[in-house]
Each structure stands twice: as structure tokens, then as C-alpha cells.
């Protein structure tokens, strides 16, 4: 997988799309939504939301982004800015879910549903297991693992997206990997195949 290109095939927006949205060009927001919906949905999903909540959150992220589009200053900052919006929306969605679960006897169970399309049906269990283990990690660690391990961003890109020094990203990544391995093995899964590179980034 190419670094910086999410496995879902969403690699960014057409050049000039941000400017078109900021200028209020007809159809610009629809194009932005089409270009970014899958990416935002994956973020929400791997940050711990159920598929249904992730879908709602993705809609909300796009609506909030369109209402505040003037605050995004550059095309190249769009991914980073959208991720910041997603973090806040996901945090709110998790709080709402907590309240909903408090007042609901049955609770939510669609976390056990696959949210992605897989070429091989056996990968469905893999997706569920990864989401379950990510959900056990502290938020700060899950974000770094999502962006580097799942989405394939470099350490420097993640540092910019999270407004952190690259060294902090590296240390969070180390902790996150250790925590994820512990959760993975505690759930009785076979070890994941290690990547050839030991860490993203140049």
C-alpha cells in the first residue's frame, strides 16, 4: 500500500476543490462530499464508532466542514483539517452513545457487524477483531495507529494532523503497538504479520 494513500482508495480531493467550495461554486460541496465520504467514514469507524454511528458521524463531519469551510486555509491542509473535525464529532458521538447505552436496556450491538466490503469473506473476522482491539486503546493511541497503520500516513503527516511533534507521534505509536498486541493476544488471535518497515516515515 502506498504511503499516504488509504487502502480504501481515497487519496484526496481534486485540485482546487477547497477554493471552489469557499467561493460557493455550484456543486462544489457535492464533489467534496463524494471525494471525502469514504475517508471520513473509515476514520469514524476505526475511532470506535459502530457502522451506523460512523455513518451518522460522517454526515455530520461533512455538514460541519461545509459550514466552516472558510476556516480551512489551504488545499494541502484539507485532510488534516477534516481529521480534526472528525475527532470532535466522534468524541461527541461517543458521549451520546454512552448516554444512550445508560438509558437503554439492550445497548448497542451493531459493533459486531462488518462495515467494509472485503474481497475475501474470511477478512470480515479480521476487520471485526481489529476494530474491537482498537476500541480498547486510549483515544490518543488509537488515533496514531489508525492514521499510520491503517491509513498509511507518514509520521510527519500524522504529526501535522494531530498538531504534535513527530517525536511524540513516534512514542505514542510505540505504546499503541504494544497495547494493541496485548489486546490482540488477550482475545486469542494469532499474531498479525509484521510489516517489512519498522515505522512509517522517511
Amino acid at each position, binding site marked *: *500500500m502506498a504511503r499516504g494513500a488509504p*487502502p*480504501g*482508495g481515497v487519496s484526496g480531493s481534486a485540485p482546487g476543490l477547497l477554493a471552489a467550495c469557499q467561493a460557493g461554486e455550484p456543486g462544489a*460541496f*457535492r464533489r467534496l*462530499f*463524494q471525494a471525502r*465520504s*469514504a475517508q*471520513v*467514514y*473509515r476514520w469514524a469507524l476505526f475511532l470506535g464508532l459502530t*457502522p451506523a454511528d460512523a*455513518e451518522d458521524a*460522517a*454526515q*455530520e463531519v*461533512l*455538514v460541519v466542514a*461545509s459550514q466552516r469551510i*472558510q*476556516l480551512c486555509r489551504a488545499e494541502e491542509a484539507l485532510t488534516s483539517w477534516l481529521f480534526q473535525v472528525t475527532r470532535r464529532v466522534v468524541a461527541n458521538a461517543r458521549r451520546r452513545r454512552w448516554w444512550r447505552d445508560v438509558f437503554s436496556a439492550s445497548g448497542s450491538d451493531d459493533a459486531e457487524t462488518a*462495515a*467494509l*466490503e*472485503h*474481497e*475475501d469473506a474470511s*477478512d470480515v473476522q*479480521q*476487520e471485526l477483531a*481489529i476494530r474491537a482491539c482498537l476500541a480498547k486503546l486510549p483515544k*490518543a493511541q488509537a488515533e496514531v*495507529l489508525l492514521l499510520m*497503520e*491503517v*491509513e*498509511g500516513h507518514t509520521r510527519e503527516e500524522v504529526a501535522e494532523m494531530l*498538531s504534535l*511533534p*513527530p*517525536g*511524540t507521534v513516534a512514542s505514542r505509536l*510505540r505504546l499503541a*503497538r*504494544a497495547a*494493541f*498486541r*496485548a489486546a490482540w493476544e488477550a482475545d486469542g488471535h494469532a499474531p*498479525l*504479520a*509484521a*510489516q517489512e*518497515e*519498522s*515505522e*512509517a516515515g522517511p
Partner: protein
Amino acid sequence: MSERRDEGLGLGKALGRATVPADVQRRIVVGALDRLEQPRARLAPWALVAAGAAAALAVGVWRFSGGARTPEAGTLVATTEATTYALGPHRVELAAASRLRFTAVEPGAVQLELEAGRAHFRVAKLRGGEHFRVRGAAATVEVVGTRFDVEAVGACTRVRVQEGQVRVTPVGQGAEALTPGQERTVCPPAGPEVLSAEEKLVREALGLISSERELPRAAELLERYRRDYAGGVFEEEALFYLCLTRARLGQGGEARALREAFLARFPQSSRGQRLRELSLP
């Protein structure tokens, strides 16, 4: 676990070519477009009742504030048309295509940063200990009780006073009082002397921090800033980055004390949340 090398987990590989289903993408896009066009269509009946009550309350507040909006502290607003904001008894009229950050918004303490464009301020009489400050790129304007304009003109800051008196403090220089009818444009000096000693100190420290070189030296420069320029225009930045640097250096005790100092000194700062989330050794 602890003896294992820090290898990648291969999560991307494990997920293979998993994609977001096309129908999910379509629902997200259509739903978002619907919500943009018909924001009230999703309200449940109980929510409509609550919205009605909120609207009635909002009308009261609206009337009370003369139809102006009141932004939260930490908000950065960017206007496409002229917009009026209410800050308690004060009013800010932000021109179209302007950007203004509401750094602190609380009774007796208003701090704003004009990043672009022009804003007109109508400030009610301030009592002792209260302040209303507007920071531009080149100067900080402090109100003594008045009506005035601040305009960002490139790297310069232009101030015009219509009523009352304001105190203008160019970055790194002494304060100057402006009275009605007076106008002052403050620009950074040209050429290599463009930065004040105060700004140079902070910039040098931030350069070291961003490149992760000589962090102890960066901490020393920021400590010096705090000592030599107490209450200076970069006080917030210096305290914030000093806290992050101490944490990065593994000096948890110092970082904790600096975090407490920051939160006490700048309770409305948007950077406070970042420090609260900081995991300290």
C-alpha cells in the same frame, strides 16, 4: 511483550483491499446534502418542542444583545459578509472577508486577535481591572472606553479612534495613547531588523522545538522570555511551548507546574485542552 522489537502491526495488510461499500458512501453524501439544505428535517417531535423553547429564549437573548451573535472563547470566525458580534455590553462589527479570533470572552476580560480584514469596536465603559484588548500582527490595542477601528493592512496594523481613548503598543515598543480623530498605522520594521528582540527569542525557541533539536536550549530561551518579558505579547505561546518542551524532556514535575500556571493564567485559551490531554511522565 517487552522484549519484542517495535515492528509494524501490518493492520493495513490485514485489512487487505477492504473498501467502504458504495451504498454507504452514497447515503453519507445524500444525507449530508439533505442536512445542509434542510437542517430541521431530522428533528424528532420532542426535539421540536425543545427547539421552540430554545428559540424563544434565543429571541430574548437576541433582543438583549441587539441582534448580534455571541461567539465562544477560542472561536475563530471568518466572515463572508459584514457581521456584528456581542460581547456582553460591547459590540464588534467585523467587515466582510475578515478573520477574528475570540481568544478570551468573559466579563471584564476580552481579548481578540484580528488576523485579516477590518473590525469596528464599540466598547462600553470599563471599570478598574477590566480590559478589552485587540491584538493585530504588529500591535496590541488596549481600550480605555471608546469606539475605534482596527484594520490589518498586510503586516501592519491600522488604528482609528472615533471616541474615547485607546492605548496602542507596537510589538516590542512602548505604549502610545490615541484620542478621537487620531489614526496610527504600526508596521514591523523592514529588513533584517523586522523582529523585536522579544519575538526573536520566541521564534528561535520555536524553531528549535519544531526541528526537535536542542530542546534544553529551547526551554532555556522560553524561561528567559518569561523572566525578561513578563506579561509580554507572546506570554501565552512561551508558557504553552515551555510546558510541552518540559514534558518532551521527561521533566514531568516542571511540566505539571507549568500546565497549572497556564490554565490559571489563560483559562479561556483553546490551547488549554491540549495541555489537559498531555500525558506527563
